[in-house]
């Protein structure tokens, strides 16, 4: 369904060019759930926005392909892109509190998605006789969507404004917006980061149910490897704009290959009786405008070899559906 090849997105800055997505390769089948994991600032959001061609100015995609059912989105005209956004590929953003437009009723914001892609127009007939019928049909569909994502008393809440919703409810409304046109791919960019833990679990449940009932493929972006492990069939680990490891979830968790993935796993807290010392990865994420070594992880790596500094690196297939970008394999 989705095949990203050599995607490279850059931001020109005063300190030099920031390569926020560096030769990203990714494949995904319909209905699959993929977890995209990495530290803050490693380019997860930029990669997602690149798929929709929504990278904010001055960022731009300089090379690569984003094949969606065989068609390259990078080459699409703005009009063609607009028909795909929201309809074929929808996105959920990180911070629900700032993602709904404060001046419009929540119900109307969901309805806009239906309206813009003419979801209810066919059954309703043409203007002017169909218009009133269409409005009603759209409202009904919105109520139904709000019910589906678990917003209680949707009839009343249709007419409320975003600030009258809690964070969890706002994220549900945003999921309703994303689901309105039954997209085939849902890009969920840290949908639970801004929410507290119980709400997190509910939202993830909701996403899983959507995946099961509608067959929507989901890319779940998260910096929490635990969440990804629980939720996704496949895990993609990003570091400094690059994919460093990719593979089936169980394999990656039980037998992480890349030293960075191993480090990430060691730094997750677990609830157990015995006290286990957390081992944070030493050092900080490198400055993307100024990468010194060929392997961006070189100076933080506990398994670094002298050759790491200069050797060419590529995402190598090591069998069993696993890929890793490291000289060790």
């Amino acid at each position, binding site marked *: 369904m989705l095949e990203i090849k050599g995607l490279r997105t850059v931001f020109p800055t005063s300190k030099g060019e920031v390569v926020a997505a560096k030769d990203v390769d990714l494949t995904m089948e319909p209905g699959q759930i993929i977890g995209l994991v990495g530290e803050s600032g490693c380019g997860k959001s930029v990669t997602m926005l690149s798929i929709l061609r*929504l990278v904010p100015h001055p960022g731009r995609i300089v090379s690569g392909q984003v094949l969606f059912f065989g068609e390259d989105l990078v080459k699409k005209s703005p009009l063609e892109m607009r028909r795909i956004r929201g309809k074929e590929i929808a996105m959920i*953003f990180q911070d629900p509190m700032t993602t709904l437009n*404060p*001046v419009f009723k929540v119900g109307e914001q969901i309805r806009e998605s239906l309206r813009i892609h003419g979801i209810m127009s066919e059954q309703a007939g043409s203007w002017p006789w169909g218009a009133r019928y269409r409005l009603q049909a759209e409202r009904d569909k919105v109520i139904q969507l709000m019910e589906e994502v678990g917003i209680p008393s949707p009839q009343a809440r249709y007419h409320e404004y975003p*600030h009258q919703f809690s964070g969890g409810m706002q994220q549900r409304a945003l999921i309703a917006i994303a689901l309105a046109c039954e997209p085939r791919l849902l890009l969920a960019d840290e949908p639970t980061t801004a929410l507290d833990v119980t709400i997190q679990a509910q939202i993830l449940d909701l996403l899983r149910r959507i995946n099961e009932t509608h067959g929507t493929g989901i890319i779940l972006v998260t910096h929490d490897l635990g969440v990804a492990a629980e939720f996704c069939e496949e895990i993609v680990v990003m570091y400094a704009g690059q994919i460093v490891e990719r593979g089936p979830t169980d394999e990656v968790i039980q037998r992480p290959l890349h030293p960075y993935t191993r480090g990430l796993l060691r730094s997750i807290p677990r609830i157990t009786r015995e006290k286990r010392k957390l081992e944070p990865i030493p050092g900080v994420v490198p400055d993307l405008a100024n990468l010194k070594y060929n392997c961006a992880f070189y100076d933080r790596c506990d398994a670094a070899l002298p050759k790491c500094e200069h050797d060419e690196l590529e995402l190598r297939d090591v069998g069993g559906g696993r890929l890793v970008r490291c000289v060790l394999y």
Partner: protein
Amino acid sequence: MRGIKVLERILATIPIMVGIAVIIFIFIRAVPGDPVDLMMGEGGYVSEEEMEAMRKAFNLDKPVHVQLYLFLTQTLRGDLGESFLKQVPVTDLILDTLPATIELALGALVFAVLVGVPVGVISAVKQNSLVDRVSMAGSFVGISFPHFWLGIIGILIFSVTLQWLPTNGRLDSGLSIEHITGLYVIDSLLLGDLELFWNSFHHLILPSATLGAAVAAMIARVMRSSMLEILRQDYVMLARAKGLSEYRVIVRHALRNALIPTVTVVGLQTGVLLGGNMVVETVFGWPGVGRMVVQSIYARDYPVVQGAVMLYAFTFVIANLIVDILYTYLNPKIEL
């Protein structure tokens, strides 16, 4: 619910108005020396009887608290005294000239919004482009150059050189119009007289643009900066991710939010447009309150000046009230 709150707000302006009246009252009395002497000081020979009559007119022969009481009750009844010069009630004079001022202020406001909002939006959307730079330079001129200068340049270009627009009055001399609202542009339409409409409209353009230039510039700047801020918001990104056209993203999702700070500017400037038009009305011979005030100041016709000051203060209070009410419609988060 909202209706009740609006009413509350309207009632809350009453003490403010009374306060303003008191301040004006104190101001007149705080002038050192006998106000009547002062007023008549340069007026040449004034008889003792005339002085006495004037003291009576201002109630200056009575104790202060009685004066205050009389002043307030008279003002509340709409009695602002009588013009020294024309011997007619100030209220009548103001009512005669107010429609012209309102027409000019509305014209200026329409001009300011029609120019300021699109310029601000386009500058923000095309930030740092040539359009943006030219607009912002233009807005600088609009804000910093005085009215009379803009007015005279306008007259030189559009009236003298191009001969497109008239320079004086509200209608060509010889024409007259039946007063309905007192706003000629509207009255002529109500009367169905297109010729009069064009005539009055032509007369309105140059004064409106002159008066509105500074406000247009201010709106453009506020609009630009709030638009730049809004365009970075997540909900604008969501609007794009929904598949909306860029036009719809900007006009429906961003503009509505960016208008909120702009409304404050517009509202406060409305007061300025109604009360700060002496120069423009004088330059263009526009028979409004502002020109009357200027003439009254020259003639030392204090009751008229005082009445106009009262009106201006009132206008500011009302403009503020309207801003507050409008705000709640634009921003659901804010309640009255």
